[in-house]
């Protein structure tokens, strides 16, 4: 199929970018979205032009590296799908596709579609871990945890940190990402010990990184490739309020 692409090109973080038009022919419906971009880049290499840079790694939907705005929506039109798992059968011959990087003040563009998500790492560094020395791997069944709790915690842990929630939020809020990390650890016995300290430092870091506030529009849950529930944001708020009240 033949496609008309409008792609964001930007040389570096300080330069001013613009949308550039491309035409691409020979795209098959079995190609993934990223393979379609690979095909375009090959043609650019043959023309000795600078290739379009984009983030990607595993290309099987689990690493959270890839992610662009496709026709104005994070990771494109499908539900619970990363950009790499979006296939060209979702488009038809002659379509025009707008491709832009995830945009937020806390996610500066590095080049073209590639963004810097260090702000997410800084939030994790601020408290998204269990600080107690755990020694060697213990016998798994020595700490009783109910099946439901494990599943709920794992649902939150499924967050791959791609940033689609921030990209789609009208406030560029990282509440779903931070909520998922808080919920994941706060539900488990090992994580409960530092739950108060964790939520306070992580929320503070979220603010410092320049993310906006959560307006509970719930758009993030709709666009999240892992289907993380917005209730994890409420759980974060619960943990935060509890920590504020109980703080010594």
């Amino acid at each position, binding site marked *: 199929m033949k496609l008309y692409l409008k792609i964001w090109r930007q040389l570096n973080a300080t330069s001013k970018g613009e949308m550039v038009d491309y035409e691409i022919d020979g795209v098959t419906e079995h190609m993934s979205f990223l393979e379609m971009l690979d095909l375009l880049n090959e043609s650019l290499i043959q023309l000795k032009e600078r290739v379009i840079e984009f983030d990607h790694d595993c290309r099987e939907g689990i690493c959270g590296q890839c992610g662009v*705005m496709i026709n*104005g929506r994070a990771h494109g039109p499908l539900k619970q799908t990363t950009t790499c798992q979006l296939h060209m059968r979702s488009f038809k011959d002659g379509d025009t596709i707008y491709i832009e990087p995830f*945009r*937020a003040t806390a996610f500066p563009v590095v080049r073209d579609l590639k963004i810097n998500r260090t702000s997410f790492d800084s939030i994790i560094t601020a408290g998204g871990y269990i600080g107690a020395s755990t020694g060697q791997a213990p016998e798994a069944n020595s700490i009783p945890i109910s099946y439901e709790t494990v599943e709920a915690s794992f649902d939150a842990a499924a967050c791959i940190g791609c940033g689609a929630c921030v990209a789609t939020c*009208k406030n560029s*809020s990282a509440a779903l990402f931070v909520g998922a990390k808080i919920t994941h650890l706060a539900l488990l016995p090992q994580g409960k010990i530092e739950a108060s300290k964790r939520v306070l430092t992580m929320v503070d870091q979220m603010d410092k990184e320049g993310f906006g*506030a959560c307006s*509970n*529009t719930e758009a993030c849950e709709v666009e999240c490739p892992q289907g993380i529930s917005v209730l994890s944001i409420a759980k974060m708020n*619960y943990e935060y309020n509890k920590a504020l009240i109980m703080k010594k």
Partner: protein
Amino acid sequence: MKSTTLKNKIIIAGTGLFLCFFLVIHLLGNLQLFLPEDQAREQFNWYSKLLSGNVFIKIISWVLYLSLISHALYAIIVTIKNNTASKQNYHYDKRNFASAWNSRNMGILGTILLLFLIIHFKDFWYVYKFTNLPIDAAGNKDLYEVVVQSYSQLWYVIIYEISFVALGFHLLHGFFSASRTLGLYHPKYVKAIKIFGWGYTLIITGGFMAIPLYIYLK
């Protein structure tokens, strides 16, 4: 502790819920306007007098003024921060698909409500407190007459009805959003609050919308 956006949201949620509670009381008081005219006049004027003379009500009203001001003020503070966080616009933007329009436009709805409140305070609150009104048979200030005069003008009724529609959409999102900000995360109660929020919104909005219409059509 630094002042975080989450703390600001707690203030917006808390004051918002207090305003929700106030709306219930306000509507209950206003139901007296549905009584037959003579009875409504006496009763409503007596009720207005009761409210203005009571120390307990005076304290509540100061909490009310404070809530209104801080609700708006902190909403502005949070909005400024949100705008800084999301300065970069998309050239092609279809994100609206993923959320309800009223949840994205609480600021605009709130501004309509603020403008409404200026009119509302000027025409009733200010007139009752700071001007000389005629006295009714029982010797109370005749606020009922002011109400009837105001709502006999079509344009005035239209302004009120538009404002109440804005109020409805504001409440519909605001009520449940506040519950989330305060940390209600259990799926069962989240669902219950959403249903309760719908019921609350319909009753409050419907009730307030009915009053100007009833008086205009009478």
